[in-house]
């Protein structure tokens, strides 16, 4: 065995090891204690394994769900959920995803250091999701493995730089300056809602939208595991009610559909919880190291943060944005049901985050009218676009889950079109 083979079969064959090494280097660069270095490295690798374990569980439950939905409605229902699809992609392309993410972070820092675009993308989970999308997409174009990784890394870096920049035009108005930006791959959606919102701008110049009072309405929706359970339960339940009589019992060993729905919903939510815990553990050391390096080498950096930071600026607009966005998603589903076989079922979690942040932006730009119009349209687009992404990721297999937020679809479609030019 020569050095290259050892490298490929040893370190680069195992994504958990690549990620462990990234964390190790990050921790050493930060001059952490030996104990912290060791525990951080181990936890990063554990996180990767947790994602795989969770992927198995959510996958089993999802295939049951799609069987039930197909049996009852004769459609293919696809759920947009970033964590689940990333976990599925990691089972096959873990190595590519890890390397794309590493190259993406390095190139992103180089861009921030050398160009006037100083955004530092600090939402590690969205880096991971975009890496997974790019790996799944690029592998279908039968490039050499290393080309896939380098190209994917460069595209990821470009996305990480431009996504905060695109939405900053409106985010700046919400947060009142350039002290921070938004790192969430829904920037095209924010641009859309900001634009639609601004159409409803009141005639009086520079009138700030009045602050809305706080509410506890959102309380129930904050606990996402409970929400995912209820959502999955309702999906199973409604599919079971419309199922041909006896078919649910024959699919699930004679059990009552109510029991089946509860068990399947706990299974899916449980799997999601494991994936979520895995993503958190995987990134708990990598993101701080990334931020530490960025702080040192990029003077004047603008930190770009995950989208819930916007919720505080208009809590009611966030809740309204979420609910209206979901309503827009239902409308998109109704349209898809009329037109075709594959239907995107609007997910609660993407509508909560993207819809909520889009609502805050729309409200600041165009008051209540702007909020309503922009949120409905945003939800419609959010649930419609993945239809175009699903066929591009076909080499992941016939999964019933896909990426949720708008940028994943937009970047996927653009990259696919560019790749098409060269083939």
């Amino acid at each position, binding site marked *: 065995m020569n050095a290259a083979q050892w490298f490929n079969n040893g370190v680069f064959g195992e994504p958990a090891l690549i990620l462990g090494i990234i964390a190790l280097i990050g921790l050493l660069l930060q001059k952490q204690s030996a104990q912290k270095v060791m525990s951080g490295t181990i936890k990063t690798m554990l996180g990767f394994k947790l994602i795989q374990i969770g992927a198995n569980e959510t996958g089993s439950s999802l295939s049951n769900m799609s069987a039930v939905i197909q049996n009852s409605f004769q459609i293919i229902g696809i759920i947009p959920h970033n964590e689940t699809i990333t976990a599925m992609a990691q089972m096959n392309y873990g190595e590519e995803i890890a390397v794309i993410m590493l190259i993406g972070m390095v190139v992103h820092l180089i861009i921030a250091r050398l160009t006037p675009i100083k955004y530092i993308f600090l939402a590690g989970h969205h880096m991971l999701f975009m890496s997974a999308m790019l790996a799944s997409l690029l592998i279908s174009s039968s490039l050499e493995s290393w080309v896939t990784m380098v190209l994917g890394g460069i595209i990821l870096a470009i996305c990480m730089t431009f996504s905060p920049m695109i939405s900053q035009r409106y985010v700046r108005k919400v947060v009142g300056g350039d002290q921070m930006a938004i790192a969430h791959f829904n920037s095209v959606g924010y641009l859309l809602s900001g634009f639609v919102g601004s159409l409803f701008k009141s005639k009086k110049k520079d009138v700030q939208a009045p602050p809305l009072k706080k509410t506890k309405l*959102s309380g129930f929706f904050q606990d996402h*595991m409970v929400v995912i359970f209820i959502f999955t339960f309702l999906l199973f339940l409604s599919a079971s009610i419309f199922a041909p009589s006896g078919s649910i019992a024959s699919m699930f060993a004679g059990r009552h559909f109510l029991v089946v729905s509860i068990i399947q919903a706990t299974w899916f939510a449980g799997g999601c919880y494991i994936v979520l815990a895995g993503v958190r553990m995987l990134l708990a050391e990598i993101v701080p190291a990334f931020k530490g390096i960025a702080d040192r080498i990029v003077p004047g950096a603008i930190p770009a943060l995950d989208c819930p930071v916007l919720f*505080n600026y208009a809590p009611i607009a966030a809740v309204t944005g979420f609910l209206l966005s979901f309503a827009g998603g239902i409308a998109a589903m109704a349209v898809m049901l009329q037109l075709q076989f594959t239907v995107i079922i609007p997910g609660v979690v993407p509508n909560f985050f993207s819809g909520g942040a889009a609502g805050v932006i729309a409200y600041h730009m165009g008051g209540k009218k702007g909020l309503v119009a922009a949120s409905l349209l945003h939800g419609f687009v959010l649930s419609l676009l993945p239809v175009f992404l699903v066929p591009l990721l076909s080499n992941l297999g016939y999964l019933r889950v896909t990426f949720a937020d708008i940028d994943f679809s937009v970047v996927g479609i653009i990259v696919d079109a560019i790749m098409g030019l060269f083939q």
Partner: protein
Amino acid sequence: MKQIIVACNSGLGTSLMIRLNIEAIMREIGMQVAVEHTDFTSLKAHNAKLVVCSAYIMDSIEDAEDIEIIGLDDIMDRQYLKDELMKSIVFQEWLSEIE
């Protein structure tokens, strides 16, 4: 052991950023505190005395007698975070212990 739990909806983005700020403040004042970030669902399993989160989700956390919750209106402002911590009863106890 002194422990602060930072919570947000999925425990991925916002909570990690607040955690980094808290850790920087702890280094500044030389206090040994374990800071963990977590999601809303797992919050109760941590049994912490002091919880930090964004004001947006603070209202949704059920009141518990022995837990002190700090809800932040501004997530990025480190000085504001430090002021809020200094106002906290649990934190003042910890401060008096090290003095």
